[in-house]
């Protein structure tokens, strides 16, 4: 059995379930970000439920518009806080906390083997901890917070087997962009994407989160990396109780296997307006940019800011470029502060904002005007995603984004003088 089959077997209490079966499963964590919470609460109430099923397992994070920039958002936040208080929810992370997919693992809500459901498509990020994690809409979430249960089709799994060592300035983001280019924007629809091989074993938890985060961009239901010592080390001091890791059987059946050679991988870039429109950076280097954004649940972690700072230290960004940096959480922000990263970034000309999702989805910060070009470390380059539908958005790693901010042109960091 695959990791997904095992987790969903356990969560459904149905013995051995196989890919293709539909199971009713018990959810270990139900997560809601601000902008989908009210619709879910309304759905729960319309279904006739007055209380959530478990005040310890429903987690809310006010992250998409943090802090509120409009009266509507302020009202949404007010109503959510009121709901959390009235229900006695134990975990409401307010606007100072960070992006939900970073906050959840940091605060110990995710464990290997868990079934994590979130009212946000990038919930697949939590598969980096050996969990089965997937996104749903608000009506599904309404039923989940009311009953603790949902129905799921057990997915087939596509295994991405990565061997070798990523070269200098080639990051997990380049690996997942390359994978998206190979598999396609709908190539993993309804499937789990499992990442394995020596490159993944050597990879940090942060990098694994980058990989799993973008499973949805191929239509994937979840990304998964089996847990190991690195996972346990991250979780130590954050989670309580026993951890029961889940591993795939030797004879687990996969829909397909994609083999990737890390040694020869180059920095990649996804060109407008599709996530699978992926090329080696060299093919578009020299394209003029107006804005670079480093942050998001894909690439707003310490090692992302660290590599950006290493490139920017002692340099200044191009005069015609603005560089926006958004740490993924308060914990990341504080670490970056302690390590002097914040200073390097600010001195290089960056704008540093508080943790939020705003710059990724065309929210309250960092919009692109018509005709402008942005390079971003986030996960979607859809038309209009970051502001004007007449803007162009390129997806890349933090190193590529930082190097491009320096030159004002899309740049392979290895080509910087």
């Amino acid at each position, binding site marked *: 059995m695959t990791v997904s089959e095992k987790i969903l077997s356990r969560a459904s209490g149905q013995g051995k379930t196989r890919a293709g079966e539909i199971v009713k499963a018990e959810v270990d964590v139900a997560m809601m970000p601000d902008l989908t919470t009210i619709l879910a609460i309304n759905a729960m109430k*319309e279904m006739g439920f007055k209380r959530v099923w478990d005040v310890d397992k429903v987690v809310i994070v006010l992250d998409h518009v943090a802090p509120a920039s409009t009266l509507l958002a302020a009202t949404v936040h007010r109503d959510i806080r009121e709901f959390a208080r009235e229900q006695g929810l134990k975990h409401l992370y307010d606007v100072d906390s960070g992006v939900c997919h970073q906050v959840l693992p940091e605060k110990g809500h995710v464990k290997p083997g868990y079934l994590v459901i979130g009212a946000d498509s990038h919930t697949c990020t939590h598969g980096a901890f050996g969990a089965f994690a997937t996104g749903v*809409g608000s*009506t599904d979430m309404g039923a989940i917070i009311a009953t603790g249960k949902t129905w799921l089709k057990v997915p087939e799994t596509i295994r991405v087997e990565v061997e070798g060592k990523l070269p200098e300035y080639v990051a997990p983001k380049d690996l997942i962009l390359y994978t998206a280019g190979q598999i396609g924007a*709908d190539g993993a629809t309804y499937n789990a994407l499992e990442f394995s091989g020596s490159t993944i074993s050597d990879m940090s938890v942060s990098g694994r989160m980058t990989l799993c985060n973008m499973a949805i961009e191929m239509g994937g239901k979840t990304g998964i990396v089996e847990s190991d010592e690195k996972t346990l080390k991250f979780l130590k001091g954050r989670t309580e109780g026993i951890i029961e890791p889940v591993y795939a059987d030797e004879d687990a059946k996969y829909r397909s296997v994609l083999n990737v050679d890390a040694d020869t991988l180059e920095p990649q870039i996804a060109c407008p307006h599709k996530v699978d429109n992926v090329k080696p950076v060299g093919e578009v280097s020299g394209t003029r940019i107006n804005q670079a954004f480093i942050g998001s649940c894909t690439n707003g972690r310490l090692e992302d800011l660290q590599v950006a700072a290493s490139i920017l230290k002692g340099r200044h960004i191009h005069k015609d470029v603005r560089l926006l940096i958004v740490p993924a959480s308060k914990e990341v922000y504080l670490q970056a502060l302690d390590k002097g990263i914040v200073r390097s970034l600010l001195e290089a000309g960056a704008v540093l904002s508080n943790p939020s999702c705003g710059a990724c989805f065309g*929210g309250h910060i960092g919009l692109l005007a018509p005709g402008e070009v942005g390079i971003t470390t986030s996960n*979607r380059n859809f*038309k209009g995603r970051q502001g004007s539908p007449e803007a162009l958005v390129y997806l890349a790693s933090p190193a590529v984004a930082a190097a491009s901010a320096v030159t004002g042109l899309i740049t392979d960091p290895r080509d910087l003088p």
Partner: protein
Amino acid sequence: MNIRLEGMTWEFGDDVNTDLIVPGKYLELVDYNEIALHAMEGIDPDFPKKVRKGDIVVGGRNFGCGSSREHAAIALKHVGVGAVVAESFARIFYRNAINLGLPALECPGIAEAVREGDVLDIDLIGGKVKNKTTGRELSFVPLPSFMVAILNEGGLVAYLTSHKGEW
């Protein structure tokens, strides 16, 4: 809901993502009718003015990809769209649509068989789509009975209410 649906078509192509259906700046809205005013705004801002009740949205591959925002399915349903028929759907949009009582039908060949403005006659139980303008008929795998029940009762909220919270 009727098990037969008839409506005029609007065609949108491959990879219609939920950012195009309802751009991110409207996610603070919670009123269904206000959300509906922005249906398809990323592709055709005039769509809410042009679409009539019962019209059918036709998509290509991967319709509804991207964000989990239920606003996308809410907007289409409450602007009056009677069904979405596509070559294939992204899974979260698909669930959202069914949960809201908006039929989402995966029908291979549909993108090529329809020109915008053609009138379709859909038989939900029989799994047939007839293009009344051209006479061409296509089949799709009919929805399982519990999903037809959810659609018939107007969505998951109504379904769970009438079934006392039991699936």
